[in-house]
């Protein structure tokens, strides 16, 4: 697998070669040595694309909606990347990535590139991985990148933080679904989509969302009804997405926060990986575990012993 050099893959991506794009994504996703250099080389070419996050409960129709929006944007002449995320099994580490199943119509379009991603549960999580893949697609020449998330958990909030525009997909008959989404997700949405609006109860969901927005002070965020199956509301949704992207460019504080969050997330990964590597190799981690299990130590003391000086420096800063 190490046959093709990073340089050749980077050149391939920048010159629009699809196989290079796919292969480079794999290597960056696997964090193969040299991945940072490749990302650095691609970064300057990745600035023009916009990233759209699509989230919502499992079964809300995210894949079907992503397919419909991707197809419409592609028909308008835009170059589209799709990142479809599904969960890895925490037991086997395997994953069944089935989102493509519902994306057939857009997948046949020559300007649509779809990539399935498993959450993998790796250190640092999915957020940075998805952000990197979006950036590679942007450097390849995609105008719009749609990230469809798993639909549950904290990763959701992290992934969509990387997006310029976030839509939350809701459906009728999921009264509790809105409740479940409230923590975290509702705060970051730019667009609320009530999908499967051909079913009974869609108007109630719209009213619920509007009610919640009026309490939370989020008036002005569009609440749209769609039916990904009949195509109703898709054109309006696409317009709302473009408007949302347009607004994102003007949010200077938010843009700063986003860059800061990315630096911190990369630092966290680096630090954790290097510490896990170091203490894993020299056996200090296992020794600390044994000490705690034998009742001779506790996790807090163990961390202080592993990182002498670090916690003092941090608390000193905090007290200043």
């Amino acid at each position: 697998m190490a046959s093709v050099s990073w340089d050749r893959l980077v050149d391939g991506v920048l010159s629009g070669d699809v196989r290079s794009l796919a292969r480079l994504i794999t290597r960056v996703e696997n964090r193969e040595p040299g991945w940072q250099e490749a990302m650095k080389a691609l970064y300057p070419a990745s600035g023009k694309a916009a990233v759209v996050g699509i989230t919502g409960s499992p079964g809300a129709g995210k894949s079907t909606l992503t397919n419909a929006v991707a197809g419409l944007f592609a028909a308008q002449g835009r170059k589209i990347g799709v990142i479809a995320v599904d969960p890895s099994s925490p037991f086997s580490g395997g994953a069944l990535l089935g989102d493509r199943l519902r994306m057939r119509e857009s997948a046949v379009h020559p300007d649509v590139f779809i990539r399935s991603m498993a959450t993998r549960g790796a250190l640092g999580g999915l957020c940075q991985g998805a952000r990197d893949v979006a950036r590679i697609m942007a450097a390849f020449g995609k105008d719009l990148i749609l990230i469809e998330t798993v639909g549950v958990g904290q990763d959701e909030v992290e992934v969509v933080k990387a997006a310029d525009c976030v839509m939350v997909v809701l459906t009728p008959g999921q009264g509790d679904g809105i409740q479940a989404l409230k923590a975290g997700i509702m705060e970051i949405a730019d667009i609320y989509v009530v999908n499967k609006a051909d079913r009974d109860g869609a108007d109630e969901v719209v009213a619920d969302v509007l009610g919640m927005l009026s309490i939370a002070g989020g008036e002005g965020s569009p609440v749209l009804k769609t039916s990904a199956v009949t195509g109703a509301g898709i054109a309006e949704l696409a317009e709302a997405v473009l408007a949302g992207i347009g607004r994102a460019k003007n949010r200077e504080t938010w843009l700063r926060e986003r860059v800061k969050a990315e630096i911190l997330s990369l630092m966290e990964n680096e630090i954790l990986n290097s510490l896990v590597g170091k203490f894993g190799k020299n056996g200090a981690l296992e020794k600390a575990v044994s000490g705690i299990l034998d009742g001779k130590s506790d996790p807090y003391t163990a961390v202080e012993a592993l990182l002498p000086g670090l916690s003092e420096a941090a608390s000193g800063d905090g007290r200043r």
Partner: protein
Amino acid sequence: MSEDRKIRVLIAKPGLDGHERGARIIAYGLRDAGFEVIYTGLRQTPAEIARAAVQEDVDLVGLSILSGAHLSLTRKVLDRLSEMNASDIPVIVGGVVPPEDAETLASMGVAGVFTAGTPVSAVADFIRAQIAKKTD
């Protein structure tokens, strides 16, 4: 993390037969064996399969064919892959395949043929061996 590099496979069903069970069993089984399995569902065209294989950068493509059209469908998938400059992606075929056809498939370049009743673990082992061979 490259030492335990994830194996990615595409399980696809070309052609018109609607018998999805075998493909699903393989897809679930390979997931449980620790693979990342991209499953694209029924009645995929050879062009769709080749595109998905390239975009997903899979290590291997598994075709499930029960319609009897395994020779022509597999030929077409291999042709589409070759057109996309992706002949290096190994293809295996599962389904109802008579022994003489299995030989023909092998001569076309198919890496392995698995008939009904093959345990998923045997398929998983075969895929791991294929990929190890390719990496060396």
